């Protein structure tokens, strides 16, 4: 926020100009823009193959103190936060398909669980969007209590099996905390229960948040603007590296097959009975569920599909960072076929030498996790794993 106040009044329309083809664009792309975008998307650091906590249990803590009504984030802090959190929930379940999430709100000095830990993103999104409803009883009011929120989250997370991660993500707008006791004791108990606390501040860095995050091994960051808030939250969707002493067990999972035609009575997510023609069949009890991953409503077996497990493989075998190269002659991007001019840097895949533009560079590293130029058969880093893949998935 500070940089916006210092910058004074912004005239965003000054930067907009009409391009040659009549479309509006913001500014010309230069080599500096490239560096900035790459830095922003953190295409440099690389964790490499490592053990990660793939099964996560996360409590989202939303600050609903009166500071949430400030309008330094547009249109106001609450609206901006909720929209970003909804995006966060979608990305989280995309990256961590067999994880659970819950929501806690801090309001009027107390912390309340408004959504228990569950793996259904629709339920979470529903609860989060309800916070923006004009007649919601949970309008921002009073002060936030960090200690209460942490205690509530801890009480629920400590019963989670030890092979799963226990995490808390706090979005904090207020600079004060209204606590009933000594928060340092709470931090100690969080540590002993292996709960990781991450705090995303909306106003400024707060000492106690810094301490909580440092003590529990989490990340503390402050959002500069609306985009940055989204980026900070998205960074938390990547599964954290698992500690070396992490417990491992074998989870019993059922691979449910999809049946498209057989009409069956099924129990829906809200507990009501309904008739459907498409659903997943539990391999243990043949009950039909509407969507996976979730527990079979009849026998309690965790139902997943092999693609759900495959979703997490790119974390373990990440795509190498592309080298920045200057082109001697103009050519075409190997991904999207747009021309690569010699005036701008291009990005080269270290394994196949394909050159791509900045858009594709960001896209393949952020979302696709595949090089568009590498033929799979000659691809060394995938080859390494495909033999295992072949055995695992048919």
């Amino acid at each position, binding site marked *: 926020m500070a940089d916006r106040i210092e910058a004074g009044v912004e005239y965003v329309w000054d930067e907009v100009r009409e391009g040659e083809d009549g479309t509006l664009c*913001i500014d010309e792309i230069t080599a500096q823009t490239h560096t900035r975008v790459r830095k922003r998307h953190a295409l440099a650091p690389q964790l490499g193959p490592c053990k990660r906590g793939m099964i996560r249990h996360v409590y989202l803590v939303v600050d609903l103190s009166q500071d949430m009504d400030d309008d330094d984030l547009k249109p106001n802090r609450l609206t901006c936060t909720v929209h970003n959190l909804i995006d966060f929930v979608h990305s989280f379940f995309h990256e961590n398909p067999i994880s659970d999430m819950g929501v806690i709100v801090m309001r009027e000095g107390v912390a309340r669980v408004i959504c228990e830990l569950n793996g259904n993103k629709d339920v979470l999104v529903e609860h989060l969007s309800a916070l923006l409803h004009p007649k919601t009883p949970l309008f921002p009011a009073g002060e936030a209590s960090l200690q209460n929120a942490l205690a509530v989250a801890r009480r629920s997370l400590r019963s989670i099996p030890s092979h799963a991660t226990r995490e808390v993500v706090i979005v904090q707008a207020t600079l004060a905390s209204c606590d009933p006791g000594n928060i340092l004791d709470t931090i100690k108990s969080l540590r002993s229960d292996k709960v990781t606390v991450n705090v995303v501040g909306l106003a400024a860095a707060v000492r106690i948040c810094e301490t909580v995050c440092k003590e529990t091994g989490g990340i503390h960051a402050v959002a500069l603007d609306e*985009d940055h808030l989204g980026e900070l939250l998205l960074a938390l969707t990547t599964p954290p590296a698992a500690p070396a002493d992490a417990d*491992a067990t074998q989870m019993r999972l059922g691979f449910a097959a999809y049946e498209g035609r057989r009409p069956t009575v099924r129990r829906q997510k809200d507990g009501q009975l309904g008739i459907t023609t498409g659903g997943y069949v539990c391999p243990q009890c043949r009950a039909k569920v509407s969507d996976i991953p979730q527990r079979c409503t009849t026998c309690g077996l965790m139902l997943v599909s092999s693609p759900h497990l495959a979703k997490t493989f790119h974390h373990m075998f990440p795509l190498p960072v592309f080298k920045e190269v200057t082109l001697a002659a103009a050519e075409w991007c190997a991904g*999207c076929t747009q021309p690569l001019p010699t005036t701008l840097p291009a990005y080269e895949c270290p394994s196949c030498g394909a050159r791509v533009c900045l858009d594709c560079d960001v896209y393949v590293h952020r979302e696709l996790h595949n090089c568009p130029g590498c*033929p799979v058969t000659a691809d060394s880093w995938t080859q390494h794993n495909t033999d295992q893949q072949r055995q695992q998935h048919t």
Partner: protein
Amino acid sequence: MSSLFVLIVDLHPARWKQLSEDASLDEAMNQICVFLNAQLSVHVSNTIAVIGAAPKKSMFLYPSAVKMPSPDDRQELFSEMNATILANATKLFNEQSGERHPSDLAGALSKALCFINRTVRGTSLQPQHTTASSSVTSRFIAGDKATPASSSSSSSSSAPKAAGRDRVSSGARVTPRIGVVSVSPDSSVEYFAAMNCIFAAQKNDVPIDVCAMGEEAAILQQAAHLTNGTYVKVHHPSQLLQSLMMGFVTSSDAHVLVRPVQRRINFDASCFCHGRTVDIGYVCTVCLSVYCERLASCRICGAEFSDKPGA
């Protein structure tokens, strides 16, 4: 509502020969061209791209990297497009005719997604749940940050287009789709890469429609299911045009006809220890590898399993 349709054609020489004695690639490509012309005729601002997936190599057949004059007449444009696609397809087909490797389907899907990302980003590829107001304000406030909207529009103004028809007016809403005409069975080699593509498509709301000829393609079957696309099995190449027209000519939300339903899709995994297909397995909580029995330690990541059984 206009659509951007990217068609991936599997050009595996050996499979095409195996498929049918009397079916030639030319005949099938002609049918595909008829379908693409129909696709363009449905809406005046519909755009298409065609990618060929040959063994170990995939490339754009249309729009081709070589700059083409863009004729004003639509009829002329169609004939020129057909000629380009046929010429490029035949060239790629003959180039790779000696190869026995599986087709580079994952590479083709990656290219298609990159193309869609570049062409559509900033107009409609934002996830549906993002509100218009927040995305608009953030785009304008972040003036110096080359958001996808600004980068795509200024790159289109600064450099000439590679092809005439891939321009999408940035105000209109464009729905991207991918179509796959497949003749090969699954290749396990590219399972990993193909799955990455499928998840990216799923995340970007890009449906993958599949038309499988010859053998069933389990990966593509899952692709269609996961991305909310249509999977059609074609038994003979002569039925290709009919299936394409019935299944794919309109976007999935505008289907007047009932879409073909997949009867059963197996999501079974096979275990690491014996290679058996299992429907109930034991999964390592650290690396998510699948076993058919309880073990003392994971054979892939080496993690020691504690005694008490998991969830």
